[in-house]
């Protein structure tokens, strides 16, 4: 048993944290996050040049990391700085390709950061349907609220099928593919991706017959771990901000942190953040393990935990700050939004609790 990160991983984390601290103040973040693109291409380029995406993949996939703990430290650092750039899509789409094999060139460009990818998973108003057509398929329907869809030049798309899901690699400029982009509440962007009679050849397929579920699990599992770690990073930031505020803000002649009712609530917040942190460690540990059920349960437990705790931390952060915590100008409001809205990605607290039970 050992709770120290390896030197390599600690160095990676330090590099990333430092780069974000120096180059990614909240003003920069918000300019990208609420701007039309919903992210800052220059920031994306800087961070990918640091090898941040490569750290999310193992050597076989062209990266230099790729373990659960690599994903954890990277996304914790991203969460702490409230990064909106399209790392989640790179991770999920890249993991799907790595699991399926056969699209090495695209995967290499994703891992290097040259290509922005998105993972299009949840059906929208019209479910996505793939009709067999020759050796390939014709795709019709929509995928809903795909993270950073507008920035992506390739999509990894899942299609529910009887038996096993079909996973397809679809370049964004394929005829019939269109994206309706929008910002999201907490900053960043997403899009509904519509496929109108999109003709795909057989080699669009990721993985072979019967591999679909394993590919989806690989991608979604990585995404769940990443979101959970991101949430813990964001929690750490607001914890420190709130403690600072409690120490500095005076009312009735004393720092409000001297009021016992607030102290006890903050102690509870601290406890729950520590528990969330442990949940992510458990998930990162099980992520690389051989026991598929234990892995899925630990991921569900982590996402459930950060869903519940994220809302608690966000609400207590705002309440303990009072009005100032509700202002756009003050960074914690954006963190609070992220902590709440992260529960709306890849299944919420109730969903993952039920999944945890079903897996039991």
């Amino acid at each position: 048993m050992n709770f120290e990160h390896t030197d390599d991983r600690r160095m990676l984390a330090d590099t990333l944290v430092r780069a974000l601290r120096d180059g990614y103040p909240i003003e920069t973040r918000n300019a990208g996050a609420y701007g039309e693109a919903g992210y800052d291409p220059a920031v994306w380029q800087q961070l990918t040049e640091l090898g941040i995406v490569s750290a999310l993949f193992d050597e076989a996939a062209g990266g230099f990391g790729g373990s659960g703990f690599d994903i954890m430290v990277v996304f914790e650092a991203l969460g702490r700085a409230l990064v909106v750039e399209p790392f989640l899509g790179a991770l999920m789409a890249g993991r799907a390709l790595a699991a399926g094999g056969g699209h090495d060139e695209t995967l290499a460009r994703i891992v290097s950061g040259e290509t922005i990818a998105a993972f299009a998973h949840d059906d929208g108003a019209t479910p996505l349907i793939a009709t067999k057509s020759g050796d390939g398929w014709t795709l019709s329907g929509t995928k809903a609220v795909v993270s950073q869809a507008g920035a992506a030049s390739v999509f990894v798309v899942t299609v529910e099928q009887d038996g096993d899901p079909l996973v397809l690699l679809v370049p964004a400029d394929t005829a019939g593919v269109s994206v309706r982009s929008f910002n999201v509440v907490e900053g960043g962007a997403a899009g509904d991706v519509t496929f109108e009679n999109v003709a795909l050849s057989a080699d669009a397929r990721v993985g072979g017959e019967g591999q679909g579920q394993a590919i989806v699990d690989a991608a979604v599992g990585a995404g769940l771990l990443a979101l959970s770690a991101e949430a813990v990073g964001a929690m750490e930031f607001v914890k420190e901000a709130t403690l600072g505020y409690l120490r500095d803000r005076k009312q009735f002649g004393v720092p409000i942190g001297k009021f016992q009712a607030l102290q006890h609530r903050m102690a509870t917040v601290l406890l729950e953040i520590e528990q969330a942190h442990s949940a992510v460690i458990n998930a990162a540990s099980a992520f690389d393990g051989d026991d598929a059920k234990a892995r899925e349960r630990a991921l569900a437990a982590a996402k459930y935990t950060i869903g519940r705790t994220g809302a608690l931390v966000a609400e207590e952060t705002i309440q303990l700050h009072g009005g100032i915590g509700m202002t756009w100008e003050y960074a914690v409001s954006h963190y609070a939004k992220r902590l709440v809205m992260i529960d709306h990605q890849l299944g919420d607290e109730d969903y993952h609790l039920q999944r945890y039970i079903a897996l039991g």
Partner: protein
Amino acid sequence: MDLSFTPEEEAFREEVRAFFRDKLPARLSTLVREGKRLRKSDMEEWHAILNERGWLANHWPEQWGGPGWSVIQRFIFDNESALAHAPRVVPFGVNMLGPVLIKYGSEEQKKQWLPRILDGSDWWCQGYSEPGAGSDLAGLKTTAVRKGDVYVVNGQKTWTTLGQHADMIFCLVRTDPTAKKQEGISFLLIDMKSPGIEVRPITLIDGEQEVNEVFFTDVEVPVANLVGEENMGWTYAKYLLTYERTNIAGVGFSIASFERLKEVAQMQKKGGRALADDPLFAARMARVEIDLANMQTTNLRVLAAVAGGGAPGAESSMLKIKGTEIRQEITSLTRRAYGSYAAPYIPEALEAGWNGEDVGPEDAAMAAPSYFNNRKLSIFGGSNEIQKNIISKAILGL
């Protein structure tokens, strides 16, 4: 004990319902129901309609234009108003300043200002909070120094809701810097067009601008605009804060938003069935529905005690805490119910007459902003922590 309305109360409710049916413009109720932004003119329009019927300032004495209603009638009216998706009455003139003037103002002040509140000549805003004085309201620092016939005001107010529309502001100012905290405060009425006033909007967490900072630099205010006595403002301020609380629990708003939540939960799917049939979501909804049904009776019990001569005041702190918790929980569940479609941020969709295509289900774009905006409910009007302090002292005797 009888929870049903008396025939008279029932008749009154029918009268109120008929009024909303006949007089509330569909354009306005649609805006409210859909959670869209209201313009100043929308609010003024509704005030004028209420005023024409004599129902705008429904807790004022008849002498000054009130309808002479009981607390139960006011409760019924407030509830029906929310259920009809009527715009809220802008409270600053009608519910806040009005009662203070009626109790503490001079005859001249009443005659000058009260009719203008009713007919919409003045849009009032509230100058209470300051950057350094939030929960500790009496810690305010804005000064007013008497110079001949005027007070010269310097300082800053904040969280001034709808101050961008205001003609007038009522302010707590410090007139005796040497007195103890609560004792050197006065209550001034200030023209927002006075030289030296600057209003700066504050953007809130949901991207909306409804509150403001107001800066005062050597602003001259006629001494005739002092309400009551100099240095006695704290008394008037406290009176204002506890006066009109029939609607503090917001039961009507909660009922209306819960009805909407039920529709959304029927429409949204989870695992092949309606979200409303998911056992965990159904349990969340049922818990808040029961809490709300209990709250409605708690509210009426408190009002009945007031009507029967019981003590008001601190009980309204209970209503405020529980009422805001319920309202926040309902907005939270509505946000949850939309799943991934709660994420899109379409500020232009909040505008009346927006013709863009929805992203996802109708009204989904309002769910998350509304949830975040409503976090304010437990902060403003005396934070829920301050309310618990009041309960501890006044009701629990701790």
